[in-house]
């Protein structure tokens, strides 16, 4: 349905869709979307689509930055060329499950099973007005679960906030910064303490120390042990 409309559609702004699902927007619309999605995301935390929209509408500085980091790195460059996608249809789940414990593939699958999540629930980008940047943000979304695996954080509110802190340092995306800052609002004081004293400082140190996590071709490293990948990237062991 998206493809059909893309062929026929003549956006009244005079702009044309650049990729399937692209909705060209004016600066005013982007501003309204950013504000509206921020409010809605806080009001109803189950609206993951609002978090996604917020990321897309506020990422105009951070995304080109990320893309350039990828371009200037051999592995990142290859990712931009080959555009791999992490989806259930492209992953060989049986093979990953068969890998030894401690390997990236095995731990990733374990993470998906334990937290009952799937890589297919990531929203495709709509409001990014550059086709390559749209891929970058898509890659960032799909790699998010691998972040959880590398950082050893579950998908509860606490775990998500920790990953957001890490991502905020790594990517500079305003959506991550906002998520990191406002996410803790809904946590109990005990959790807040753990967060503030142990987890966040560790996340920040790791984020600053680590090389760009988008420059890793994860699909070619399923056999690599998680410990070794952490060391390679510069992520300190989780507390």
């Amino acid at each position: 349905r998206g493809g059909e409309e893309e062929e026929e559609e003549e956006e009244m702004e005079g702009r044309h869709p650049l990729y399937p699902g692209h909705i060209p927007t004016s600066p005013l619309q982007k501003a309204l979307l950013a504000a509206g999605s921020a409010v809605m995301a806080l009001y109803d935390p189950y609206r993951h689509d609002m978090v996604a929209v917020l990321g897309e509408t506020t990422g105009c500085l951070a995304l080109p930055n990320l893309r350039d980091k990828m371009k200037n790195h051999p592995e990142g460059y290859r990712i931009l060329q080959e555009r791999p996608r992490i989806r259930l249809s492209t992953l060989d789940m049986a093979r990953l499950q068969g890998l030894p414990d401690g390997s990236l593939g095995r731990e990733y699958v374990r993470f998906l099973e334990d937290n009952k999540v799937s890589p297919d629930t990531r929203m495709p980008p709509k409001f990014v007005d550059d086709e390559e940047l749209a891929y970058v943000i898509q890659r960032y979304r799909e790699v998010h679960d691998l972040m959880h695996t590398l950082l050893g954080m579950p998908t509860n509110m606490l775990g998500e906030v920790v990953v957001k802190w890490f991502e905020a340092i790594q990517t500079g995306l305003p959506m991550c910064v906002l998520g990191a800052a406002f996410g803790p609002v809904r946590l109990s004081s005990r959790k807040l303490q753990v967060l503030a004293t142990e987890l966040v400082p560790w996340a920040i140190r790791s984020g600053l120390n680590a090389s760009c996590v988008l420059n890793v071709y994860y699909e070619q490293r399923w056999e690599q042990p998680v410990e070794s990948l952490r060391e390679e990237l510069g992520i300190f062991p989780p507390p």
Partner: protein
Amino acid sequence: CRCRALLSGPAGALRARRGLAAGPEMHFGFQTVTEEERREKIYQVFENVAKKYDVMNDSMTLGIHRVWKDILVHKMNPCPGTLLLDVAGGTGDIAFRFINYVRSVRQRQLQRKLKHNQNLSWQEIFDSYQKDQFNSLGDSQVVVCDINREMLKVGKQKAQHLGYSEGLSWVLGNAEELPFDDDKFDVYTIAFGIRNVTRIDLALQEAYRVLKPGGRFLCLEFSHVSNPLLSRLYDLYSFQVIPVLGEVIAGDWRSYQYLVESIRQFPPQEELKAMIEDAGFFKVDYDNLNFGIVAIHSGFKL
């Protein structure tokens, strides 16, 4: 102004706007599609928006749509015993207002009757209560007809939630080909529905057919704003704000983009009046509400 781009030539544009089968090409918002595609796309739009339909209406119009609908029913001024057909009535807004209106008119009727009966004995007064008690609507009825199952579902749930049961029927049907016999209804309404009909001429003909002689046609629909300053502000609000509201509240930009485009594609007041006259209605006129943002067209079958 952003609109008017696609349709090929003025004659084609006119015919496409009138919803006539101008060859295979029709408009869906600002896109060009075939008749069948248009019906399907519109069905999908309303399937997607059904659950958030009322919330979106309130957000987009800042609640003013309620006033517009009140005005429609007041203009109708139904008396108890009226049989109303509300087409594209989906979530029941007009139907519920009709029932409320008729109930209050009936209340006043009964009160007046009581006043006249003050010279009767207690027993006789009590007997008259019994007779009228179960007739709070005075035999009025409303049939809500909609082509979209999801919208009807939401409407039925709303009715249950709000406590409407008497005098209300829900029928799945197409405005271009109504499942009703000739000369059946006293009033036919279509509120914010005719814009989504693919062949408006057929819908008007059907409306004429199912109305009794003396019956009234009422249409509440978005129309054209002639005031240039207001028109620009209205366009700005429509195209910049409404799709954003759609995305934020309903998670659906495209359906609301379609909505604002379809308003621009719809015939203006005079043209719609001519189409209604073509279907055979007499004494056709219209009232602009809010400078033409919305208009109520009325006609009679004589």
